[in-house]
């Protein structure tokens, strides 16, 4: 319990944990700035994605779906990698700081959200371009599996027990689950696939994409990254407050029990 807050660097105020949770919000000056930057980024993306960028020769207007689909897929990867790193920091450091566990949980929640957006936007694009919503193709299948894995990860976090039990179980799972990401990314090379291969993240660096489209994609990545950071910081803080409320409840129950016995 003592070491728990030491590495809890992202929490608003460690001492707020058991004192006045209700009175302190999760926003600080820094997160307000971050939130404003994310909003500007999304507006910028809307302007380029819906306005300035051209329609595609084959896909026509439906190419605009990619400015949501690709950034959300990359951010989901990033979120799950952050979950794995935070889980490793929790598991392999002697302090076993729950702060890292909450960062892992918050990042996974946001990652599941982005992965869901990836799947839905991809299905809409698939119906318009391929003619079908879904195909049990390597990329689609591995992505669906990744999504379901992290829904399972979140369910395991909710199974109960002490905070340390939750952290240990989920950290082990997160370190295993992150190994699926390379499989998802290279699935289009490993198997013959309906899904196209990577355009930007390709080994030979020969990007075959219209310049303005590529720029719009870049805007999408920036906007989604800011949004991700903003969501994770806030979620991590509400998780800290939840844990503190749990601890406070336990302490109250112990005090009541002692009063009863004494």
């Amino acid at each position: 319990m003592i070491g728990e807050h030491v590495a809890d660097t992202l929490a608003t105020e460690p001492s707020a944990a058991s004192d006045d949770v209700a009175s302190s919000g999760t926003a600080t000056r820094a997160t307000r700035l971050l939130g404003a930057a994310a909003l500007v980024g999304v507006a910028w993306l809307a302007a380029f994605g819906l306005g300035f960028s051209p329609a595609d020769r084959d896909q026509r207007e439906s190419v605009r779906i990619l400015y949501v689909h690709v950034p959300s897929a990359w951010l989901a990867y990033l979120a799950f990698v952050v979950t794995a790193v935070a889980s490793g920091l929790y598991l392999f450091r002697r302090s076993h700081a729950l702060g890292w566990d909450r960062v892992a949980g918050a990042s996974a929640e946001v990652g599941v959200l982005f992965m869901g957006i990836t799947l839905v936007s991809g299905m809409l694009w698939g119906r318009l371009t391929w003619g079908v919503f879904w195909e049990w193709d390597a990329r689609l299948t591995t992505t669906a599996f990744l999504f379901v894995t992290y829904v399972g990860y979140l369910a395991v976090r909710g199974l109960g027990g002490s905070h340390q039990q939750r952290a240990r179980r989920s950290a082990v799972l997160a370190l295993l689950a992150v190994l699926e990401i390379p499989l998802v990314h290279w699935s289009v090379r490993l198997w013959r696939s309906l899904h196209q291969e990577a355009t930007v993240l390709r080994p030979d660096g020969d990007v075959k994409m219209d310049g303005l489209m590529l720029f719009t994609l870049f805007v999408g990545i920036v906007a989604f990254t800011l949004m991700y950071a903003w969501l994770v910081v806030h979620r991590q803080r509400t998780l800290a407050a939840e844990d503190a409320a749990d601890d406070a409840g336990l302490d109250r129950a112990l005090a009541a029990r002692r009063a009863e016995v004494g």
Partner: protein
Amino acid sequence: MDLSPRTLPDTAASPTPSRRRWAPIVLVALVLVAGGVIVTQFLRSAVDYYCNVDEIGRRDGCEEHRRLRVQGTVDAGSVHTDGARTAFTISFHGATLPVRYDGQPGGIFEECQPVVVHGELVNGTFEGDRVEVKHSNEYVAENADRLDSGDVSAESGTCSPPA
């Protein structure tokens, strides 16, 4: 924070665990089922060989009377729609295959687009029941294409740009 040792709980009078959270347990079970379904669907679909047109009859598994997925480019001028049926030919590396499909392909289906057709090869004609339009990993602006599409058709030799 109170760090004094906790007194031992009074086991005789201890209440049943106050809250067993069932929702996450049900969710974990559902996740396992969903994972199993995803894997079996993938394996069932992978059973259908994915062949290029020029591999039909040559590559092991790419033969008649079994379900296949065939990839090729729709030949220019080959698409004929007859009510609910669509007939066209697809080519890949010089080999050509006639396809019949019950329905109208969706997506961006048109001449000179690469497609994947699911179905069965019967007497030299591919009877398709699902047509998917493949999209390459190249993205070209709509109005910058005049020269580009000309180049592509000159390269492949079989597909002139749609009129």
